């Protein structure tokens, strides 16, 4: 257990103490006790920058389930460190923000911070684990804590719906990912990511390679809200805003991005990886930005914007992976895309975090997030407005903010597809460009519909005013980062970006120089085009908004999700109801039918019809007579309607059986059978008075069904008996009993000696059975006076 392990486990440990702080230190907001931890962790992780920028990786292992190859191995390399810094850095800011956002008096702060710390620890575990099973465990813990956080206001219906939805979708992907992990283990024999990467060349032609790839991607796509799994993210906006800012913009939704980046060295040489990631990323990018424009709730806009930006990062990772796939082309063309992906990942975390906090402030100070009610807040909240402008302009990709730089690099990456020289390649930059136009529009809506325009005090619950300074600190820090990274992008490049990139694409050298001005080129023209078209479309929004009405609501993915849940529920209910009828007779019919089917199929399958007439005893007249009587009696019993006849016929069968025992030289059996048959018949007659006079009859259709089943059972038993008798494999062991009954056990009746001497154990428990039956009968009769009910009451 090293300090690194402790860093991951620390949030869990603090989570244990949070309820005590909450309960015993009432005067102070619980968040203050939580705040030092992420700051400490952030500082701790910063100390690794010097080693990772020298291409060193720090690995610490802690034995967990070594026999199964599962060890808690922590590995700090460029990629892991980048994410760890994001998680702890934004985590600190979000905790600080939440201290001012959540009221000490009305909210259950203890649960909030416990969940948040659980999430933080789990997320650190995801990005720093080198063992895939450990990674998976932390992965599910992030799904789980996200579920708890979305459902934080659990008395609201929509929170519960959103929590359930995100749980179902992310756990679906998580399980697929587990499948992928196991497939990888089958191919490589290890769970260690480092060792799997080392074997990546060997497994690319393995038959399990593609299934593993698909499973891992399904996990990554569901977690990172890629189309069509993005539907959980907008509903997750029911969570408190600090949660949305932290989980659903900066960290958890990037776990899928992390997974794709982390597994790139394993899978990227396969074309499927390149095209699936790039394709789904582009569709998500377009669909997210297109849908964001029609939202009226600020957080919904941000949710779809997050979806869209995640798609952007994902598509860049896909195109970057092409560097490994297309050997003949200069890889530097494509690695720009990977650089853009990682750079945008950081940028997105900064501006999206600040925008969520801005929206939280607006919500907190006005009581609504509906853009139709908001407007003209600029004069009331100048600082919030400034932050919003910075964030939104960065998101739209305008200079001089960091979003501009990554958007330019994004266009470079998209244009590099043209180098691949295939037919529809030109579509990719076009789709990317259209998506950027929509991004521009919703960014403008976000700022200008909220802060400019007409102030509508009658629609607001509160009189708006500027937020307290504590609430503003975190967004101010993030907005400053937006500007700093915008003006001085190279402070990140050698320290954070390059180590991360070299982890994603080992074997390539990166020399990242990001500059604002790189001449008049295609990218710049595209950006200018985005701004021009975006401005025009923004001002004519009311005219073309009707486009969204054209899209049929029935085809919406949410509707599909809700309906399929509904169908599954109704379907399983229907299936269960169809066969679980509550009638024991039906269950018996199923059992008999399956017995017939399975046994008959086995008989046919094994070709067990080699009946022989060897070893067969002579047939004598008495035996034929008795057989006829027993057959007639047992068939006649089926047609009697009165109970006395059926009882007598059953008695007849019993007595014939004892006669059979006589003929087949079994005196003890004959004796026992006679006595017991007599007692049974007497018992039947004893109950005779109480039993119903007429036996309940079935309608004809049931009779036919039952007749078919019973004939089947009889036929199968006969066939098996014939087949078994014809294929005797070895002699009986009874010769031993015959020889030793007198000499060893001092008895001449072999059956009795077997019962009490050779196999006396059976007899003992047979006595026990009789004893239990007697006790049961006694209590059934005896407890009658209590009416049965009193026994239950006791």
């Amino acid at each position, binding site marked *: 257990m090293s300090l690194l392990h402790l860093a991951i486990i620390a949030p869990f440990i603090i989570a244990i103490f949070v309820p005590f702080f909450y309960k015993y230190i009432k005067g102070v907001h619980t968040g203050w006790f939580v705040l030092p931890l992420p700051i400490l962790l952030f500082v701790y992780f910063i100390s690794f920058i010097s080693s990772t920028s020298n291409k060193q990786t720090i690995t610490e292992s802690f034995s967990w389930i070594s026999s199964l190859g599962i060890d808690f191995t922590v590995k700090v390399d460029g990629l892991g460190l980048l994410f760890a810094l994001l998680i702890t850095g934004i985590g600190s800011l979000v905790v600080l923000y939440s201290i001012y956002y959540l009221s000490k008096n009305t909210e259950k702060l203890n649960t909030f911070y416990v969940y948040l710390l659980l999430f933080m620890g789990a997320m650190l575990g995801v990005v720093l684990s080198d063992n895939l099973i450990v990674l998976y465990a932390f992965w599910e813990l992030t799904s789980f804590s996200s579920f708890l956080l979305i459902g934080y206001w659990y008395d609201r219906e929509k929170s519960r719906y959103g929590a359930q939805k995100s749980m179902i979708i992310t756990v679906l992907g998580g399980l697929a990912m587990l499948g992928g992990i196991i497939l990888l283990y089958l191919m490589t024999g290890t769970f260690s990511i480092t060792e799997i990467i080392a074997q990546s060349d060997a497994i690319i032609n393995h038959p399990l390679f593609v299934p593993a790839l698909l499973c891992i991607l399904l996990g990554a796509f569901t977690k990172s809200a890629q189309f069509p799994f993005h539907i959980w993210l907008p509903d997750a906006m029911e969570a408190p805003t600090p949660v949305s800012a932290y989980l659903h913009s900066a960290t958890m939704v990037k776990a899928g991005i992390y997974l794709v980046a982390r597994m790139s060295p394993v899978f990227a040489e396969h074309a499927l990886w390149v095209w699936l990631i790039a394709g789904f990323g582009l569709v998500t990018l377009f669909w997210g930005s297109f849908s964001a424009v029609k939202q009226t709730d600020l957080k919904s806009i941000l949710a779809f914007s997050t979806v869209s930006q995640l798609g952007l990062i994902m598509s860049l990772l896909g195109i970057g992976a092409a560097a490994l796939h297309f050997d003949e082309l200069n890889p530097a063309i494509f690695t720009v895309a990977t650089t853009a992906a990682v750079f945008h990942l950081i940028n997105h975390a900064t501006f999206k975090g600040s925008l969520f906090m801005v929206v939280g402030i607006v919500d907190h100070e006005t009581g609504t997030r509906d853009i139709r009610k908001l407007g003209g807040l600029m004069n009331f909240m100048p600082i919030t407005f400034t932050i919003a402008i910075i964030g939104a302009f960065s998101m739209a990709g305008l200079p001089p903010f960091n979003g501009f730089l990554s958007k330019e690099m994004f266009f470079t990456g998209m244009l590099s597809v043209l180098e691949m020289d295939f037919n529809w390649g030109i579509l990719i930059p076009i789709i990317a460009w259209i998506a950027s136009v929509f991004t521009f529009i919703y960014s403008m809506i976000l700022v200008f519909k909220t802060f400019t325009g007409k102030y509508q005090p009658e629609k607001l619950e509160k009189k708006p005013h500027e937020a307290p300074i504590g609430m503003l600190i975190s967004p101010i820090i993030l907005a400053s980062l937006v500007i700093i990274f915008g003006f001085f992008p190279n402070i990140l490049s050698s320290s954070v970006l390059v180590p991360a990139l070299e982890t994603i694409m080992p074997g390539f050298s990166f020399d990242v120089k990001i500059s604002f001005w790189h001449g008049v080129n295609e990218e710049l023209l595209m950006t200018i085009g985005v701004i021009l078209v975006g401005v025009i479309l923004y001002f004519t929004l009311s005219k073309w908004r009707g486009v969204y009405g054209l899209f049929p609501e029935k085809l919406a993915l949410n509707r599909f999700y809700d309906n399929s849940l509904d169908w599954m529920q109704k379907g399983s209910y229907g299936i269960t109801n169809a066969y679980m009828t509550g009638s024991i007779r039906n269950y018996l019919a199923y059992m008999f039918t399956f017995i017939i089917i399975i046994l008959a199929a086995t008989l046919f399958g094994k070709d067990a019809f080699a009946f022989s007439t060897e070893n067969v005893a002579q047939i004598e007249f008495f035996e034929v007579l008795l057989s006829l009587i027993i057959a007639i009696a047992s068939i006649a*019993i089926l047609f009697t309607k009165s109970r006395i006849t059926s009882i007598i016929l059953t008695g007849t069968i019993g007595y014939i059986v004892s006669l059979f025992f006589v003929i087949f030289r079994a005196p*003890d059996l004959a004796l026992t059978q006679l006595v017991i048959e007599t007692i049974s018949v007497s018992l039947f007659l004893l109950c005779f008075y*109480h039993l119903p006079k007429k036996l309940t009859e079935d309608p004809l259709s049931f009779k036919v069904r039952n007749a078919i089943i019973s004939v089947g059972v009889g036929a199968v*038993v006969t066939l098996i008996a014939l087949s078994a008798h014809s294929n005797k494999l070895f002699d009986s062991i009874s010769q031993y009993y015959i020889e030793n009954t007198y000499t060893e056990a001092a008895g001449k009746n072999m059956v009795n000696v077997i019962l009490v001497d050779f196999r006396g154990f059976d007899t003992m428990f047979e006595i026990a059975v009789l004893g239990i039956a007697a006790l049961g009968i006694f209590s059934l009769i005896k407890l009658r006076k209590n009416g049965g009910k009193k026994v239950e009451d006791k």
Partner: protein
Amino acid sequence: MEILMAFVVGILFMSATYLMLSRSVVRIILGTTILSHGVHLLLLTMGGLKGGAAPLVGENASSYTDPLPQALILTAIVIAFGVTALFLVVGYRSYKVLGTDNMEKLRGNEGND
């Protein structure tokens, strides 16, 4: 002889199955009784029905019938009897308490609780 007995056993199984699938509790209990008869005869048949003396050493015969299946059947008869007796009392009690012997009407507590 074994072939004939296989058919007898088959008929016993058939009628037992049919009785067990019927509505009346009494018929079901009769069905289980007949089923146990079928099983006992099957055990005896499978042990072999070849001639030979009854399994008593005093007979001084050259060959005996197999004593082992007989011992097994004896155990089975007693157990089947215990179970049948218990069934019968359960059937009797349920008829007394519930007022019906129709299996279609005996469907747990659905709707009653």
